[in-house]
């Protein structure tokens, strides 16, 4: 594998944003995701390879470590920042079609709920694993999900809820999405949500952590 892409994976895994960033201490003074992505593209590395062989493996490792409690939210946020810095360089290639994401994931915290850290982490991790992510924010009702689905046919929808009261909205929204767009896959998550509830409301997946939803999405797009 290209040495640069290997380095890029490490930058994502350890959250090295750019040369100036002091984090992580063991990579101080070295080039970060920003410089290496630019360099790889300038050297003619295929943009698709930068995504799939550089950025994605790094993010996948972060997801696994987060699930295993080997890294925590602050480090995931660092990795996500490194990722988004690199993605800026790739944007023109996505726009032109020279590089493609694996699919689209629409995510939002359901109506009545304003919690968003968990949802944001999921969004970052899914994006870092090669998906286009449309984040609808918090307090989202069915119509907004459906509008986003109209613009992105075939997208998977993710719903987040942190209160038992808003889980009721999660149920209604899931049913309304399924009624309007029967083939849409709906994934649910959030602290009080569980597998049993997910099944009961007719959702297609419950994931307790970001890596699990990535794995679910990968089975649907592979």
């Amino acid at each position: 594998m290209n040495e640069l892409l290997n380095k890029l994976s490490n930058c994502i895994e350890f959250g090295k944003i750019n040369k100036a960033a002091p984090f992580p201490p063991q990579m101080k003074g070295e080039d970060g995701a920003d410089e290496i992505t630019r360099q790889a593209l300038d050297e003619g590395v295929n943009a698709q390879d930068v995504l799939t062989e550089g950025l994605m493996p790094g993010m996948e490792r972060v997801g696994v470590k987060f699930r295993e409690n080997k890294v925590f939210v602050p480090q995931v946020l660092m990795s996500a920042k490194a990722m988004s810095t690199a993605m800026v360089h790739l944007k023109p290639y996505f726009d032109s079609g020279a590089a493609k994401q694996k699919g689209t994931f629409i995510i939002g915290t359901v109506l009545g709920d304003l919690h968003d850290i968990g949802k944001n982490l999921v969004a970052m991790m899914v994006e870092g694993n090669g998906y286009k992510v449309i984040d609808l924010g918090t307090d989202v009702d069915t119509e907004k999900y459906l509008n986003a689905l109209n613009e992105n046919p075939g997208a998977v929808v993710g719903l987040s809820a942190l209160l038992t009261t808003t889980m009721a909205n999660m149920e209604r929204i899931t049913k309304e999405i399924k009624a309007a767009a029967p083939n849409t896959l709906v994934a649910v998550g959030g602290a009080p949500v569980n597998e049993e509830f997910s099944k009961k409301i007719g959702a297609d997946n419950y994931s307790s952590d970001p890596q699990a939803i990535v794995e679910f999405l990968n089975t649907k797009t592979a």
Partner: protein
Amino acid sequence: MKRIFSLCLTNTAKMNIERSFTFEELEIDPKEIIATLGYTEDSFFEPFPTYLAQAFECCKQLNDIKGAYRILKMDEFCSDKKKICVQDLQFNVGRTIRKELNGAENIAFFVCTAGAEISQLADKLLKGEDPVLGYVYDVIGSAIAEAVGDKIQATISLSEQKAGRKITNRYSPGYCHWNVTDQHKLFSLFGGTACGVKLTPSSLMHPVKSISGLIGIGENVEFNDYQCNLCQLENCVYRDKH
């Protein structure tokens, strides 16, 4: 710190005691924040310590940290194994909490908040410029809300002790099988809003970094640790805490 208790005697919420707190007087232990972030002092490497120090310094400027409580008589006759009655309201606290309230004569209802400022600050940073710093504020915001809860609990304990009464631990709607929808009843005791905290129709408190709940008071009540051995909520903030 010269902060004086203010008795807010409004039409809707009589004898509602509300108090402001400074960040310093809450004496939040940085170690607690480090642990919530996922680290120990030894594994807490840069830039996180700098972020934490910066956030602690900024939090000194917060001036909307508040706690309020109201003590009401518990209606022994209407209360049963799963619920308690106060004024004309029934709180479906569930078996676990109800047991802890055995012997209570009065109930203190409380609302505590870290205020809107820290929630907004965390939110802004999380969405933009610096998500890591935003997350540090987010975690400190939660710790502030809980620390105000500790202070309010200590205040009630002290004043009740003088009258020869004891207090129970504190319990919140949404924990230990007490349905979070009872928040509406709890807030109605404060005339719909307390310490600037409002409730949404879905029972969410706004600002987000807020907590609510009750404490039992009586000569014969006991202060017990949470009985968590049967509960599946592994990450509960109150798990095995007193």
